């Protein structure tokens, strides 16, 4: 059993780059409620499952997003113990009626993991819309990806509950697409050197709040926590008396032979 703990710690150290005591991994699922943001009208759920091999399984189901459009999505926050949360209206510091990605950062933190569909997951892929999931024609987005432990930033699994899923992309002018005529050019994309990307494409649409947690792997059936060895059911004893006596006899023989120990009865 100690060996198992040791192995777990070493695995954690090698794969995730941490072996701090008290951060041993529990395979658990964090259930996240994705709540509307910037009047997007969207809704969704996310389940982040820390697998026992250190990998992270991310499942997201959202609806009422801008249809046929990519939605940049990230885990925001940090593992430094900061208490991040989803922004409230006061976060709209420029008062334009929308909380931009930048305005939200003081509340939900910087991009920690980019939830791309393939390849790199670092902050650098934050605006890689060609690798972001696309909502279908009815605005439903389905995302499932298992990210190998080796690709996760240190501490991700231990701090799953401190991170916030944020999905971006709204349709402010209701024309069914991202366009520059609605809110102009994306300030965060421009700051990153990407010109011509609509602000609609990068404004947050959904922010995840941790709503619960469950077992990450569910055992089959009941648990075999008892062997009946102290049971003396009168009703059943009658039928099992010969067997019980035989066991007692064998046990007694075994013990007297091995230790010259006689049962005190």
């Amino acid at each position: 059993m100690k060996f198992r703990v040791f192995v777990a710690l070493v695995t954690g150290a090698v794969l995730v780059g941490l072996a701090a005591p008290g951060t041993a991994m529990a395979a658990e699922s964090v259930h996240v409620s994705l709540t509307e943001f910037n009047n997007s009208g969207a809704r969704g759920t996310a389940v982040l499952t820390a697998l026992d091999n250190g990998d992270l399984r991310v499942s997201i189901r959202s609806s009422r997003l801008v249809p046929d459009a990519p939605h940049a999505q990230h885990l925001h926050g940090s593992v430094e113990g900061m208490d991040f949360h989803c922004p409230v209206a006061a976060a709209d510091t420029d008062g334009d009626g929308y909380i931009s990605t930048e305005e939200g950062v003081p509340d939900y933190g910087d991009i920690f993991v980019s939830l791309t569909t393939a390849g790199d997951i670092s902050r650098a892929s934050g605006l890689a819309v060609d690798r972001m999931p696309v909502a279908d024609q009815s605005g439903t987005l389905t995302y499932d990806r298992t990210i190998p432990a080796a690709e996760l930033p240190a501490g991700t699994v231990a701090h799953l509950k401190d991170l916030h899923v944020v999905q971006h992309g709204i349709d402010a002018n209701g024309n069914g697409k991202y366009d520059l005529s609605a809110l102009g050019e994306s300030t965060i994309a421009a700051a990153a050197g990407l010109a011509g990307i609509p602000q609609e494409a990068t404004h947050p649409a959904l922010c995840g709040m941790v709503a619960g947690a469950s077992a990450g792997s569910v055992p089959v059936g009941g648990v075999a926590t008892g062997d009946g060895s102290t049971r003396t059911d009168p009703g059943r004893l009658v039928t099992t008396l010969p067997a019980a006596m035989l066991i007692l006899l064998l046990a007694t023989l075994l013990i007297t032979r091995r230790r010259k120990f006689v049962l005190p009865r």
Partner: protein
Amino acid sequence: MIRGLVAVVLLFTVAACANSGAPSSATPSFATPSFTTPSSATPSSVAAPSASGALTRGVLLPASPPTRLTIPALDVSVPVTDLGLAPDGTMEVPGDARTVGWFTGAPTPGSLGPAILAGHVDYGGSAGTFARLTDLDQGDPIRVTRTDGLVATFAVTKVARFPKARFPTGEVYGPIDHAGLRLITCGGAFDRDAGHYVDNVVVFATLQSGE
């Protein structure tokens, strides 16, 4: 085998479980020196108030594996080991009557979600640590000491018995919005043909405090 029979004798003479040598104090003295950490005992998220309309309830502790279980009402104070899944997909169980196991496939005790501890009702001729689990009443405290040094104190909310054939997987392992604890052992009739108890006893508890 010998130890088991000796324990049975002890059980009838001392009227205590196999842990009769341990003090039944509410403040466990057991410590794991190799795991103690000076700094991480004051995590920022301890007892974080539900800021900005949090969707979770009650006190939540950061993740930290358990080292010891104390149940004052049952005079239980025992070490906790890790349990995984057996090759057939069922939960592993402790290898002796006394030790209680923490299922590593679920949250750590005190953090959000259901933490699972399993112990035998009897094993190898001895009464198990969880032999009297059904004696627990609503409100009884259960304390779990963790590797970060914090002690998570839970209160019993429900004691239930379920047929293993219809084990309520969702209720025991499924998502919850608070830090919960489930103690699992066996109960009901013993099926000698199959060699196992027909039922599981599950004690449900909710975190009250962590310090």
